C-alpha cells in the first residue's frame, strides 16, 4: 500500500516551503529516517526524512516548487506496485524503473502547473480539534496530540472512546536542522527529539506530582538512613519458589520487600503514621497499607497494597500485578492509589546503586530500594562474592528520629536476610 509524504510544518507560522532538491531518486529503496529531500523555508534549509520503508515511487513535485504545508510531495510504496495516474500529462507516465501508480492507492490529485494541490486528508490538521473536555484532558494526560485523533462522536467530536482506541501513528516527518550537502542518509531509527523549541502544558499527573513533592520537601524535614542488605538468600529462595510457579504468578524481589516492610512496620507504628499539624497530633494508622511507586507515562503513581501485614506474599504479589497493569493502561481505580501509609520506591531494575526518595505526604517515611548486585564482601576475614542491595529510608523528622529509622532498617534485615519468614507467616 503506497503512502504519501507531505510537506512538513517546520514552525508554527510556516505556511509553505520550497522543495529545493530531491536527495532520493524515484526508484530508490528508502527506509525510515532516510533523507528524501531538502526544503527551504524563510528561516532555514532542512531535510525531510522518510517515515516509511519502501521504494520512492514518485516525486510529486519538481525541484524548486513552492508547496503548501501538508500537501503531498512524494509517494512511497512497494517495488513494482501498479500505479496509474489520473492527470498524467504533467508528470512522467512511467517512473524510471517502470512502475505505475494505482489510482485507489494514491489519494492525491496531481496539480496543474502553478496550481495548489487539492488536498487529501492531511495526517495532521492545523485546525483546532473538536473534542469533548474529557477527551482533551485525557489527551493532555496521555500526551496525545488531538490533531492526530479521528473523532467519531456527533459532528466528528473526539470523545473518550476515540482517545481510548487511539493508536499513535508515526510522526509525519523527522526534521534535521542541517542544511547539509551532501546529505548523509541515516539508517538509525527515527529519533524522538524534536529540534524545535516548544512550550507544552504540563500533563495533569506531572503537575500533581510537582505539587505534592514540593509540599513534601518544603514542609517535611527529611533525614536519610541507608542500610546494605545481604539478599543472597532472598535471591535463592525466590528462584526456588518461582520454579514452582506459573509465569504469571512468579514473585518479584519487590514482593518480598513489600511484605518485609509491612511485617517490620508492626513494630514501628511511628513510621506508619501521619502528622496532623492543626491539632499538633500524630495519627497512627490502624492498617498497614504499603504503597509501591510505579512509573507510568508522564510520571508515577503509588499503587496501594492494603493490610499488607495480614496477607500472604502470593496475594500481595497478585494484587500488585493487577494494579500495576491497570496503572500502566491508564485504567487505575481510585482505590488502587489511595490510602497508602508507607511507600516503597524501587529502582532496582535500572541498575542503580542507591538513591533517596521524597516522602509521599502525608506519610512519615519512604523506602528507596537500589539494585541487587554482586560485590566483594568480607566474611570471616576472607573476601568473598556476596549479593547486596542498598535501601535508603527517608523519614519525616517531625515524627521520628534517626535512631528509630536505623532500627527499622535493622529490623527489616531480619526478614530480608531470612526470607523464609516472608513465605511462612501469614
Amino acid at each position, binding site marked *: 500500500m503506497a503512502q504519501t509524504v507531505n510537506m512538513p510544518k517546520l514552525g508554527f507560522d510556516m505556511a509553505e516551503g520550497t522543495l529545493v532538491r530531491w536527495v532520493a531518486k524515484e526508484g530508490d529503496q528508502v527506509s525510515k529516517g532516510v533523507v528524501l529531500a531538502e526544503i527551504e523555508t524563510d528561516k532555514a534549509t532542512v531535510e525531510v526524512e522518510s517515515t516509511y520503508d519502501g521504494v520512492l515511487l514518485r516525486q510529486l513535485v519538481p525541484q524548486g516548487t513552492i508547496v503548501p504545508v501538508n500537501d503531498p510531495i512524494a509517494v512511497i510504496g512497494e517495488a513494482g506496485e501498479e500505479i496509474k495516474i489520473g492527470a498524467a500529462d504533467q508528470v512522467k507516465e512511467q517512473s524510471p524503473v517502470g512502475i505505475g501508480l494505482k489510482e485507489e492507492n494514491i489519494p492525491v490529485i496531481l496539480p496543474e502547473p502553478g496550481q495548489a494541490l487539492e488536498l487529501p486528508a492531511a495526517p495532521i490538521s492545523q485546525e483546532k480539534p473538536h473534542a*469533548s*473536555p*474529557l477527551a*482533551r*484532558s485525557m489527551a493532555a494526560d496521555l500526551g496525545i496530540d488531538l490533531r492526530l485523533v479521528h473523532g467519531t*462522536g*456527533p459532528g466528528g467530536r473526539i*470523545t*473518550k472512546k476515540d482517545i481510548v482506541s487511539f493508536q499513535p501513528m508515526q510522526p509525519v516527518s523527522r526534521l534535521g536542522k542541517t542544511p547539509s550537502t551532501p546529505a548523509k542518509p541515516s539508517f538509525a531509527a527515527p529519533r524522538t527529539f524534536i529540534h524545535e523549541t516548544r512550550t507544552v502544558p504540563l500533563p495533569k499527573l506531572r503537575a500533581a506530582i510537582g505539587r505534592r513533592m514540593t509540599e513534601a520537601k518544603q514542609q517535611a524535614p527529611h533525614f536519610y538512613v541507608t542500610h546494605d542488605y545481604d539478599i543472597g538468600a532472598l535471591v535463592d529462595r525466590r528462584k526456588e519458589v518461582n520454579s514452582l510457579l506459573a509465569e504469571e504468578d512468579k514473585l518479584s524481589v519487590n514482593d518480598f520487600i513489600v511484605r518485609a516492610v509491612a511485617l517490620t512496620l508492626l513494630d514501628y507504628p511511628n513510621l506508619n503514621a501521619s502528622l496532623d499539624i492543626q491539632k499538633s497530633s500524630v495519627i497512627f494508622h490502624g492498617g498497614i497499607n504499603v504503597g509501591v511507586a510505579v512509573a507510568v507515562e508522564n510520571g508515577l503513581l503509588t499503587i496501594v497494597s492494603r493490610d499488607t501485614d495480614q496477607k500472604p506474599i502470593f496475594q500481595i504479589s497478585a494484587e500488585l500485578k493487577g494494579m500495576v497493569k491497570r496503572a500502566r493502561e491508564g485504567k487505575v481505580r481510585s482505590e488502587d492509589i489511595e490510602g497508602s501509609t508507607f511507600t516503597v520506591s524501587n529502582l532496582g531494575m535500572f541498575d542503580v546503586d542507591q538513591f533517596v526518595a521524597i516522602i509521599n505526604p502525608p506519610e512519615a517515611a519512604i523506602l528507596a530500594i537500589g539494585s541487587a548486585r554482586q560485590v566483594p564482601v568480607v566474611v570471616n576475614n576472607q573476601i568473598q562474592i556476596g549479593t547486596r542491595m542498598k535501601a535508603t529510608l527517608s523519614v519525616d523528622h517531625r515524627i521520628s528520629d534517626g535512631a528509630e529509622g536505623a532500627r527499622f532498617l535493622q529490623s527489616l534485615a531480619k526478614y530480608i536476610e531470612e526470607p523464609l519468614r516472608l513465605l511462612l507467616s501469614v
Partner: protein
Amino acid sequence: MARITMREAISKALWEEMERDPSVFILGEEVGVWGGSYAVTKGFFDHFGPERVKDTPIAESAIIGAAIGAALTGLRPVAELMTINFAFSAFDHIVNQAAKLHHMFAGQMKVPMVIRTVSGGGRQLGATHSQTPDAIFAHFPGLKVVAPGTPEDAKGLLKSAIRIDDPVLFIESATLYQVRGEVPEDEQLIPIGKSKIQRPGKDVTVVTYSKMLETSIKAADLLAKEGIEVEIVDLRTLRPLDMEPVIDSFKKTNRAVIVEEGWKSYGVGAEIASRIYEEAFDFIDAPIQRVAQKEVPLPYNQALEQLALPQVEDVIRAIREVL
C-alpha cells in the same frame, strides 16, 4: 420491611413525631375533620384532638403566618398547603419571613416549622393547580426544600424536617401517593441535604428527584434490556443541594441527563448542569441533556397534558442523545 404507600409513609412519620413530641401540631385546610385533601391526616383529629390538628380558613398567608408565629414561640408546626400553587398566596411569609427571621436577628429566633405541600401535574387540574415551581422556592437561602421520591425517603426525611430548627418546605407529589415501597419498621431519620444513588450504573448519570425518579427508573429498566446501565442520582433535597454523589457519578460515566417535572428555563436542571460544568468540566464527554416540562401553561386536555409533561420516552431519547 413492610411495603407501604407514600401516603402511609408520610402519615406514619407525622403520627410518630406527634406521639413523640407534644410541641408538634398540624394546621391547614381540611386537615382535621376531613382528614386532609389527600387523606394523609386521616384519623389524626380523633386521636390527637382539635388542639393539635387545626382546621384553618382558606387563607394560605394566614396558615403560614400562624405557623411562623407558633414556631417563634417554641412550637413545631407542620402546616399543610393543599398544593404548592397556593403557596404563592403565602409567598412573602415563606421567603421573606420564615426563611429570614433567624438570620436577620442574629440567630436569636428559630423557626422550626415544616410546610407540607403537593407539587406536580398530570391529574387534569388545570394550569393553575398543576405546577412544579420547586426551583423557585429552592432559590432562597434560609429555606430548606425537600422533595422525596420514595416512601422510605419520605418518612425518614419528614421526621428529620420536623426535628430540625430551620423552616422546611416539604414537597410531595400528588401522583406518588399510591406508590408502594419498602419502609423499615423501626425509626429511621434520613438527613436533609444528602443525595442518593437510587440505581447503580456505569454508562450515563441521570439526576432527578420526586415523581421523575419513578419515570427515570422506568426508562432505565427499558434501557437495561439493551445493556445500557443507567446510574440514577436522586437529589431528595433541592436546598441544601448535595452534589457529591452527582459529581462522583459523573466522573465515572462522563455523561448526564437531568430529569425534572418543572419547566426547563431557570430550573433544577439548569442548576445541576452548571454545577457539573463548574466542578467536573474535564470529565464532560457529551453535552449535558435536560428533560423537563414543555414551556407552556399546562393544558387541561388529558392528551395535551401528558404531551407537555416529561415522559419515559423523553428520558430514553435524552439518554441516547448523550451516549
